[in-house]
């Protein structure tokens, strides 16, 4: 059964359309991420599900029931904000118990539920503190406890990790996923961080300029981007102008100057059905730098020169020149990164490439 269904949702603010004709089906118990840059409509979509905004067109259903006219306080949703939004004048326990006051929960029962929720977020002893006495990470856990204690039909998370610093963010990511799985609540997560989306989601909805670019499992979205936008937004991708010279049963043949002939598996180029110009997508992590002249029998290789190096500790991002093309490659560093000017052989596999139709530039 689907927990949330959006049917042809449109949201306009005056002349500006924030969300175009969006349809979406979120199945019970799943973790779904709305991913996109700021202004792509992901938060607007979340706020429409929450009932903080009314859709201009279309229908929203929660557990099969139309909720367009149901006010937010009757939707039974858990909402977690980027800035935590804890009530500063109430203690942690009062914050967590807030939603229970509006449900028929007895005093003893409420106490037990609050304790359970605090236990679940691993902060069992902070009930008497005020929010300002807690760290950012602790505040976000309390906000999560407050949202889940009411046993919501859907948990809505609006960039809950963005205000935390990098290390804490990664811990909270794992923690959030653990909590979500342990209670099995349907979760809609909004983020602009592709790493969070890939790590946590069962399904990712990539959005751009109010439109859905792609819906799919993390691996699907990562490996087989449906558009140039998705290819570029998720990780570092090289997009190269190429030519499709033939479509056969299992793969498509792609040629581009300076490169060997590439036979891309059909499932990596679902939108290419006829020869013509295409865009070749190769992930930066899939290009392997080898000493110049290395020959590999089962892969493809091309000669390149290192133009620039972006050192990142365990890995390095290389900016490379291959004939007229500029490419990026992200490789683990064994010892030292290769110096600028090095001549290398780039190796990659045809099955790691993808092809997209050429998009009309707007």
């Amino acid at each position, binding site marked *: 059964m689907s927990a949330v269904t959006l049917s042809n949702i449109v949201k306009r603010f005056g002349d500006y359309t924030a969300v175009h004709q969006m349809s979406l089906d979120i199945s019970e118990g799943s973790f779904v991420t709305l991913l996109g840059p700021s202004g792509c409509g992901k938060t607007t979509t979340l706020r429409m599900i*929450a*009932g*903080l905004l009314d859709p201009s067109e279309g229908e929203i259903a929660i557990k099969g029931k139309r909720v367009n006219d149901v*006010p*937010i*306080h*009757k*939707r*039974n*949703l*858990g*909402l977690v*904000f980027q*800035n935590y*939004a*804890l*009530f*500063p*004048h*109430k203690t942690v326990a009062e914050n967590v118990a*807030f*939603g229970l*006051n*509006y*449900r028929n929960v007895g005093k003893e029962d409420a106490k037990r539920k609050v304790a359970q929720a605090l236990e679940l977020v691993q902060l069992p002893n902070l009930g008497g503190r*005020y*929010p*300002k006495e807690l760290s950012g990470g602790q505040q976000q856990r309390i906000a999560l406890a*407050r*949202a889940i204690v*009411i046993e919501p039909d859907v948990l*809505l998370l609006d960039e809950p990790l963005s205000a935390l610093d990098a290390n804490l963010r990664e811990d909270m990511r794992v923690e959030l996923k653990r909590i979500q799985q342990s209670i099995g609540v349907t979760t809609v997560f909004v983020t602009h961080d592709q790493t969070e989306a890939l790590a946590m989601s069962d399904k990712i909805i990539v959005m751009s300029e109010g439109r859905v670019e792609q819906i799919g499992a993390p691996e699907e979205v990562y490996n087989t981007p449906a558009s140039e936008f998705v290819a570029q937004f998720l990780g570092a991708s090289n997009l190269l102008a190429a030519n499709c010279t033939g479509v056969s049963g299992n793969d498509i043949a792609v040629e581009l100057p300076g490169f060997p002939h590439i036979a891309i598996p059909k499932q990596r180029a679902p939108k290419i059905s006829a020869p013509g110009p295409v865009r070749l997508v190769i992930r930066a992590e899939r290009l392997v730098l080898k000493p110049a002249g290395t020959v590999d029998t089962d892969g493809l290789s091309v000669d390149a020169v290192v133009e620039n190096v972006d050192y990142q500790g365990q890995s390095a991002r290389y900016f490379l020149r291959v004939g007229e093309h500029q490419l990026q490659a992200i490789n683990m560093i064994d010892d030292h990164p290769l110096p600028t000017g090095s001549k290398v052989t780039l190796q990659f596999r045809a099955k790691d490439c993808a092809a997209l139709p050429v998009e009309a530039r707007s």
Partner: protein
Amino acid sequence: MSIEQREARQPWILLAPALTAIVMLLIVPLVFIVVYSFWLKSAAGADTPGFFLDNWQEALTDPFYRDILLNTLKIAAITTLVCALLGYPAAFFIARSQGNKVVLLVLLMLPFWISYIIRTMSWINILGVSGALNSAMIWLGIINEPIQMLYNETTVILGLVHFLLPFMVLNIFVSLDGIDTNLEDAASSLGATRWQGFLQVTLPLSLPGLAAGGLLCFVLSAGTYITPVILGGPRDAMFANLVYEAIIRQLNWPLGSALSLLLLVVLGVLVIIYNRYLGMAQLAKGLG
């Protein structure tokens, strides 16, 4: 001079002009008034310096002064209450309005461009016997004879509310404007109606502004002198008018000093009590 020494002196150098002004214009005159309150007025004209408790005895025991003091505090309390009730919705509206907040705030400040006395006197043109309201009601046939609406306690309160409402609105506005709107959204997502969310979250968080505005309105109206003169009747004198009477009319500076100090002490004590129970620090406790 070492850097530490220079840094230690810096705040005092920066504070010097303000401290000089406060000492010369507030502390020194106040000391004069304290000293004066123990002198005696003599029929001959020149006051008798010394340490006499006569003025204080008169100020503290005469029921005339006591009644007017209590009435002054009552008028101040009513004014504060009316300002709070009228000001809160207005402040809420301004804080929640999108985009034109600045325009609304400028409109709120606009009356300050006109002298307080002129604004107070404008009520005479509105409520007077030949004022706008009476003329309109006669023209509409509601009344035949003009009604005397001026020169009573109600018009004094009306004038004070007119004068003090912007202070109240501004104080509440500042408080409300600082509240994260996500808090109300969070409250509604947890099942609270808008009204419940307001009572549980927004109202308590705006109390510091309400308290500050209330204190300001109370102290300013308790010390008012002009409004009862312009809009009050002969029996609507407030305490500051008594001080004026004593000093300007009767030229009894010692008694006037004692009376003005009495008002100062009473208001000071009320402010301390207010701070104790509705104190800003107490209310701001939960705010990060």
